[in-house]
Structures are given as C-alpha cells and as structure tokens.
C-alpha cells in the first residue's frame, strides 16, 4: 500500500469524516465551565476623536460581568507593531496598532470596548448601552486623497499618510520607452476585496489548571500568535498555549495577529474565567482586514514584433487604518511591484509601490498577494498591445514568454525564477480549450449576434516566500520563514507526525502523510497527524504564501528520511546484514534487497529501537526525528483561459468555460491540487465580476453583509477544466512547489481579457479599467465608445 499512497496518488482525504459527520472542533462548538461571551462595541465613524466612553448602564445590564474599555485594555496590552530593518532607502512608516481605539477612531468597526456577559444575546444588549462620545474628524477615503499635499493625516504623528514607498529601476527604461515602436500605457483600478472565509474569526481564552494562558483561535499561524501574545502581554512564552483547532478557511485573513486575540487573552487573565468571542459577519466585513484595492499605472514599451522592451509600473494601495502584523499594507503593492514582469523576458524595469493610510479597514494580504493585481495589469496590457499590433493574444505571448530552457532566470527585480514552463503551459492551455475551434465558435456566434470572448492570462506564482524573496523587504524580521516537522514511531510501528503549519482545508493530514508513506512504505492510515497546538508541535510560522508543501512538506520528508535511515541501521543489525543491503518493501517491511530471507515489520524495528533490546553499538535509543527546512522560493507557472459571453444590451457577463494549465512541480495528490485550483479560480472569478467592498463618502462600509458583498455561487461558474505539467524545483525537497494561491490569480487577467475580446467587434479593443466588471460598467464602456445597440 505504501507506494500506491505516496507521492502522486489520488488518496481520499483521511480527515474528511469528522467534517462530514459534524464532529468537528471549530471554536463555535467549544464550551468550558463558567465560560463568558464577549461582544465588542465598535466605532461607528471613519475618523473621530474619542472624547469619552460611558459604560455604567452597560455594566448594570443583566448577565454582564465586565466592560473593558481602551484605557484598561491598552494598559494590559502593548500595541501591535510591525517594525523592520534592512530596508535601505525604502520609506516604511509603521504605526502602533492599539488593541482598542486610543484617543482616535480610525475606521468604522475599530474596537472601542468589550462587553463580557453570560451569553452573546445579553452581551449585545449591553453593548448597545455603551455610550461613545466622539468628535468627528475629516476622513481620508482613497489613496489619491491620502497622497494629496493637503490631506488630513490618518496618524498625526507621521509626517504624511505614506505607510510604504518603494522604488526600483533596472536597465535603460527611459531609453527603451523613447525608442519603442509603440507604448501602451493603461490606468486601472482594482476593487477592495476580502477573504471572507465561511468561518469568521473566533477566539476562546482561559487559564488552565496550572494558571497558564490557553488561547484557542481560528488562525493560520498559532506559533506566531503565541509569540506575539507573550511579547505584548508581557508573559513568558512557555506559559502560553495557543491552539488553532479546526479552522473554516483562511485565505490570508487569518495569518495575522489580531487585537481580538489579545483582548480575549487579557480578559481571561483578568476575570480568571473562560471567555469566548465568535465574530459575526458584519464585524468580519468591517474589521477583518481587506485586500487588493489599488490604483495602477502600467506601461509597456514594445518593439515592432511585439517584444516587450520595458515595463514602467506604479501600484498605489489604499492601505487602510493601521499597520497589521506580521504582514502589513505594504505587502500588496510591494509584491505587485516585485512580480510585475510576470513570466516574460523583460530587461528594463521601473516600479513604484506605495501603500497609504486611509480611514478604512486595514488592507493586507489575501490569496495571491499582489499577484492578482499584476495579472490584471500585465495581462490586460499584453492583450491591449496585441490588439494594437494586430497580433493574436496567444502569438503575442509566444513572442515574450519564458520557456523551460530559460530557467533559472534572473528578473530585473533581482528575483531568481528557479524553474517552470510558461510557454509550454500556454500551449497546453490552448490545446485543453481547443483554441482554434474556440475562435471558430466565437466567429459563428457573432454571425448570430452573440458576443463571445476569449481571454488568456499567463502567470508565474511566487510560492513559499523564503529568505530570497522576503529578506529584501525586511519582512523576515516579523515572521519565521522555516518550517519544522517531528515524526515519532511508537512500539507498534504507528507514526505520529506533528508540524508547525496549519491545514484549514488544504488537506495536510493526507498529503503530508503521503510524503511519509512514500518514504517509510506505510499507509496514510498508519499516521496520526498533529497540528495547530503550540504545546505539541514544533515551531513554524504556519500556513500562508503557498508555503506548506515546500517548507512544511520538505521538513516532513527530511524527518521521515532521518527516521528511515535510523530504522535501516536497526533493521540491518537485527537482520545481520549490511545497511546497504536493507530495503523497505512495497508493504513497508524491512528486508534484504531482492526479498530473500527474513523480514521485519516496522513495529519490530521500532520496538528494538525503543526498548534497546538489540541496538547496534553506539546508536542512541528511540525512533524519531525533528527536522526543519529554511526554504528558497520555487515558482509555479500557469496559463488560464476564460471563455465568456457578454450581453451588450444589459452588460451581463457569463463565464461559459474556464481552463487552466498549471505546472506546480510534482503533485503530492492531484485531487487536492485540482481542488485548490478550482476553488482559487472561482474566488478569482468572484474578484473579477462580483466582489467589492464599497465605502460611502462618510467612510461607512456599505457592503457589511453577505447580501451586499457578493461571493460567487454555484450557478455562476462553469466546471473548471485542468491540465498539468510537472517541472520539479531544483530548490526544494523532492522538487516540490507551492500552488495554493495561483488559482485566484489568473482570472484577474483572463476574465477582463475575455470581456474586452467579446466587445471588440462593437467598439474595438477597449480596456476594462475598473474591477469588478459590473453590468453597468460594461454598459457604460459601450456607451462611452459610441455603441447604442
């Protein structure tokens, strides 16, 4: 069984049963004796001076134990802060992020007080009675406004509203633009977006029998949360246990340390009773971090044959109110700038990245971080260039894409792409979708008055985010980049694997077990998988940035190999043959190569190792290993193709077909890989067509419910078609690459490209300059270019 369940096998997930039967450990299902519930009072203004808080009435409400205000909370807990070094001349101005508003409220939804009561109903009753006196201040509600010379300051202590301002120039950019055959310069705006996991954030904090602080939190990074709790509450880290139990999706929202986690911990310490907070959806949309809102200027200098001679790009992000931790509002524009040459050969590059403070919810990372914006800007510019040069979009890409023999490839961003197959992926995607026939179908439909469009988007995905990628941004000051795994074999041969990453849908209990199975020849069912508990797992920064397979899986492979090597020594001794003669058979037994003679079960070897019954001289007892990997970043390449229908009369866009060719290196479990791609693509289609957080001119969030923030539903999307290439990375254990985010990247280019293509017969190729592509925007675009129907 071991070999058939190893790398590449479509193993059914071992963790599914508890989810299918409702026996899950999501925090909403947890209860402890004498537990209290928290409801937060959140500021109702975008920007206001906090004059006073009246809690007397609330404190006297039925069932209320305590009302904590900012004065108390901020005395118990230091503000969150994300400092950095090694930034050179880059402007970086972090803020203190107090756990409750301190003097000034800077966005709608910022915490003003916490009400602790017997249940959430009573807590909300009392929260309504908290009086918050404020003096409104002028709000800053866009990045343009924030950067204007006379803008009000979001943080008075800073000289201006810039959180981050980075610049890069490499090569002869001005010369390339001056001598270009053609210049394509496009201004774009991407929509404010949010991760919107189905499970909102949730925290339960209590003191255990030894008086240690235990914090259950719906987090992607429990070890990072523990470190920050210790720092900011002034506790020894050993006296804190953080557990991320079942977590209902993260998508980048839950890889931060949040004020709510710190406040709940402070409350548990103060009240010496368990306290629980389940975020409601309105809070999640108002106070959970947002993503992606940027103004982009993107220019291509083109040669006569369509060669991209230079790129000049500026990304200005509407960064929201505070510096989040460990990722900050700088992540989105800085990653966009750092990856904006995509999978193309480009020598001359100039970039500018700005994140500015505004009076909105903080903008930080979400699936793809910067890459979706680049895909929109770069791929849309390439299609525009193709249209202006009279080239087919596929041909335009063929002339510029890197091909597998070009790797390793150093970009003008000083990034080293390790490996990949951009051109091969393009060709595979064209074949998957039968591009030639699709063009014929498009032409036939046009003859009948139906407007179909094809949109291609090629991409390269930074995965894992090792030192090579993050060190230049100083980010590694705040986040551990290695991952560890500990593997122990019990006397019966059963295996316990514990890791510092966190699976909240990615299926690590299965895929990591497959890696072990491939090494030790066991079944995935022989492996007990442990994650999420800082008491029982080795340190790691968790799951984000498509890093778990490479960093976490790499550590698993290393630990498994160390265990195997030791087991071979023990087995050789027991079998009285040289180590070089021992092999692990297909059914996981230790035997002489060739299969002759006696063989041993893993349990027999483990028992010998653990009970020291017959160990070789000089070998320590035990059969376990802990290993870690400090990864470099492998790159995953892909091409997406969207096939859409646009109704010019109403502006409605329907996605008819969608195909992806992806090369994420060797796949541990193709079924899991395909699940990630499908889910990512649908999120990306949502970003392109539906999702949009809108603030009104007073800074009120107008989309604070799922009625108004529209996620994609099943009837809106087609079955996602897929094909794979598998180019191993030279940088990682077994050539593994990351891939969790890429699905959400490609639609940001492919869908707008398809819409522009569909409208081309009516108004020529016109850019989609704003996302999401609403029916009204399509309608306006048609009108603006003179089409009346």
């Amino acid at each position, binding site marked *: 069984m071991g070999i058939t369940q190893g790398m590449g096998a479509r193993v059914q997930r071992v963790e599914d049963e508890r989810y299918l*039967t409702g026996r899950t450990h999501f925090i909403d299902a947890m209860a402890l004796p004498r537990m209290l519930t928290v409801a937060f009072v959140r500021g109702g203004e975008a920007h206001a001076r906090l004059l006073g808080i009246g809690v007397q009435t609330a404190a006297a409400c039925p069932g209320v134990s305590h009302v904590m205000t900012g004065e108390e909370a901020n005395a118990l807990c230091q503000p969150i802060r994300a400092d950095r070094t090694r930034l050179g001349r880059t402007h970086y101005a972090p803020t203190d992020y107090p756990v409750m508003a301190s003097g000034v409220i800077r966005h709608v939804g910022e915490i003003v007080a916490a009400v602790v009561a017997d249940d959430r109903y009573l807590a909300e009753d009392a929260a309504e009675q908290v009086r918050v006196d404020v003096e409104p201040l002028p709000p800053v509600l866009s990045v343009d406004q924030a950067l204007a010379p006379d803008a009000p300051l979001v943080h008075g202590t800073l000289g201006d509203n810039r959180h981050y301002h980075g610049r890069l120039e490499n090569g002869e950019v001005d010369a390339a633009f001056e001598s270009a055959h053609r210049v394509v310069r496009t201004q774009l705006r991407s929509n404010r977006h949010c991760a919107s996991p189905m499970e909102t954030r949730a925290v339960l904090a209590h003191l255990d029998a030894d008086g240690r602080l235990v914090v259950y939190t719906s987090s992607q990074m429990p070890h990072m949360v523990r470190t920050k709790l210790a720092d900011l509450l002034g506790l020894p880290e050993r006296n804190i246990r953080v557990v991320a139990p079942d977590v209902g999706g993260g998508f980048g929202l839950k890889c931060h340390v949040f004020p709510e986690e710190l406040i709940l911990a402070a409350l548990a310490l103060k009240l010496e009773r368990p306290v629980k907070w389940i975020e409601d959806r309105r809070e999640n949309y108002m106070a959970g971090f947002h993503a992606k809102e940027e103004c982009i200027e993107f220019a291509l200098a083109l040669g006569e044959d369509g060669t991209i001679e230079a790129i000049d790009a500026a990304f200005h992000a509407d960064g929201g109110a505070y510096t989040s931790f460990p990722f900050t509002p700088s992540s989105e524009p800085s990653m966009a700038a750092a990856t904006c040459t995509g999978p193309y050969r480009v020598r001359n590059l100039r970039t500018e990245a700005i994140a500015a403070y505004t009076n909105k919810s903080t903008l930080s990372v979400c699936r793809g971080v910067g890459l979706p914006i680049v895909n929109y800007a770069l791929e849309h510019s390439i299609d525009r260039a193709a249209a202006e040069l009279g080239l087919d979009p596929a041909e335009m890409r063929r002339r510029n894409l890197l091909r597998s023999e070009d790797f390793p490839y150093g970009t003008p961003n000083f990034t080293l792409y390790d490996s990949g197959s951009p051109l091969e992926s393009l060709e595979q995607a064209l074949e998957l979708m039968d591009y030639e026939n699709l063009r014929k179908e498009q032409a036939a439909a046009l003859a009948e008055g139906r407007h179909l469009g094809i949109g291609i988007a090629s991409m390269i995905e930074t995965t894992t985010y090792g030192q090579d990628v993050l060190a230049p941004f100083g980010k590694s000051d705040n986040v551990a980049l290695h991952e560890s795994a500990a593997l122990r074999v019990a006397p019966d041969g059963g295996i316990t694997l514990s890791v510092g990453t966190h699976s909240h849908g990615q299926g690590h209990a299965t895929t990591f077990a497959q890696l072990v199975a491939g090494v030790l020849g066991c079944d995935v069912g022989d492996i007990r998988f442990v994650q999420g508990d800082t008491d029982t797992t080795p340190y790691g920064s968790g799951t984000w940035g498509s890093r778990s397979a490479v960093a976490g899986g790499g550590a698993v492979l290393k630990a498994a190999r160390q265990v195997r090597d030791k087991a071979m020594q023990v087995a050789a001794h027991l079998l009285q043959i040289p180590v070089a003669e021992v092999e692990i058979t297909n059914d996981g037994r230790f035997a002489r190569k060739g299969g002759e003679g006696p063989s041993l079960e893993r349990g027999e070897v483990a028992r010998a190792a653990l009970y020291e019954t017959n160990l070789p001289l000089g070998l320590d007892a035990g059969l376990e290993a802990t290993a870690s990997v400090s990864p470099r970043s492998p790159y995953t390449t892909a091409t997406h193709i969207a096939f859409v229908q646009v109704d010019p009369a109403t502006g409605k866009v329907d996605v008819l077909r969608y195909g992806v060719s992806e090369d994420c290196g060797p796949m541990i479990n193709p079924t899991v890989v395909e699940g990630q791609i499908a889910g990512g693509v649908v999120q990306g289609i949502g970003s392109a067509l539906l999702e949009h957080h809108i603030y009104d001119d007073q800074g009120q969030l107008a989309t604070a419910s799922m009625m108004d923030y529209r996620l994609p539903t099943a009837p809106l999307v087609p079955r996602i078609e897929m094909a794979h290439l598998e180019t191993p990375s030279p940088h990682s254990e077994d050539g593994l690459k990351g891939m969790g985010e890429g699905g959400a990247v490609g639609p940001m280019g492919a869908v707008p490209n398809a819409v522009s293509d569909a409208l081309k017969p009516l108004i020529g190729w016109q850019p989609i300059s704003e996302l999401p592509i609403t029916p009204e925007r399509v309608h306006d675009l048609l009108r603006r270019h003179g089409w009346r129907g």
Partner: protein
Amino acid sequence: MTTTECEISLTVNGEAVREAVPPRLLLGDFLRERAGIAGTHFGCEQGVCGTCTVLLDGESIRSCLLFAVQADGCEVATVESLASDGQLHRLQTLFKKHHALQCGYCTPGMLMTALDLLANRPPASEADIRDGIRGNLCRCTGYQNIVAALMEAAGLEKADGAGA
C-alpha cells in the same frame, strides 16, 4: 405571551429534547448551546450563506432565521443524523470520494441542502444541481467537486473518480 422562557419539546435527530428557552433564541444557537449538537454552524445570520441549513420536518430551512420556540413539536434533523451505526450516509461517502469539502465549515449545511434537493426537487441536470445549491456558499471548493458528488448521487453521471 412572554419575553421570559418558553418550555418547548421537540425531536432532534430522533431524540426528544425538552428545554426552556427565551423566545429570541435562534434555532441554530439552541442546537449548539442548549442541545449540545454542535455540527451546525452560522456563517452570516442573514439567511444568505446556507451554512446553518437543517431539516425541519423533512424540509431544509435556515436555522438562523427560525426561533427555537417555533420548532416546538417539530422534528429537526442535523448533519449528525446522517451516519448511522458507524456507517456514513451515501451522500457523505460521495462527498469524501469526490473531495467535495476542504475546510469543512459549509459542509453540514451543504449536505442538508443536498438531502432536500435530492428528495424534494430531483435534479435532472448539472444546471439543476448548481441551481439547487445556489443558496449555499462555499469559499474553498469552487463548488466543482460538490457538484460532482451530487451528480453521482442523483444518478446523472458516473464520475470516474475524484477530481476534475
């Protein structure tokens, strides 16, 4: 007529439950916090996301839009009712086979919606299935493999294994 507690008795997953509840207690909160049946989750408390879907007398409803007191005398079925004697229900088996869940948070509501769909609104096509789950949001799977599992459950397509 009261704002104080009302005595209710109902059947939850075949077992009789008697409780005194305040009228405003939502059925989903009642199931989790009073009856100790915690597999049903809330995702929006606005009736939009479908996560909290349970069966009330055999029909799918939102447990965030019904007060527990309204379930007095009714039969409620949650995800915990599906497997019996340690055997997964066929739908559960198909969800596992097709990798129809990732984080698993929407799964209970999705399963209960699917039960209603298959029993009361039998789908004749993939489009019917997609339309039948339009009131249930999933943020992980892109619906792809949920649809695949339901296609097989409805006998519409013998899918060749999990995946695309």
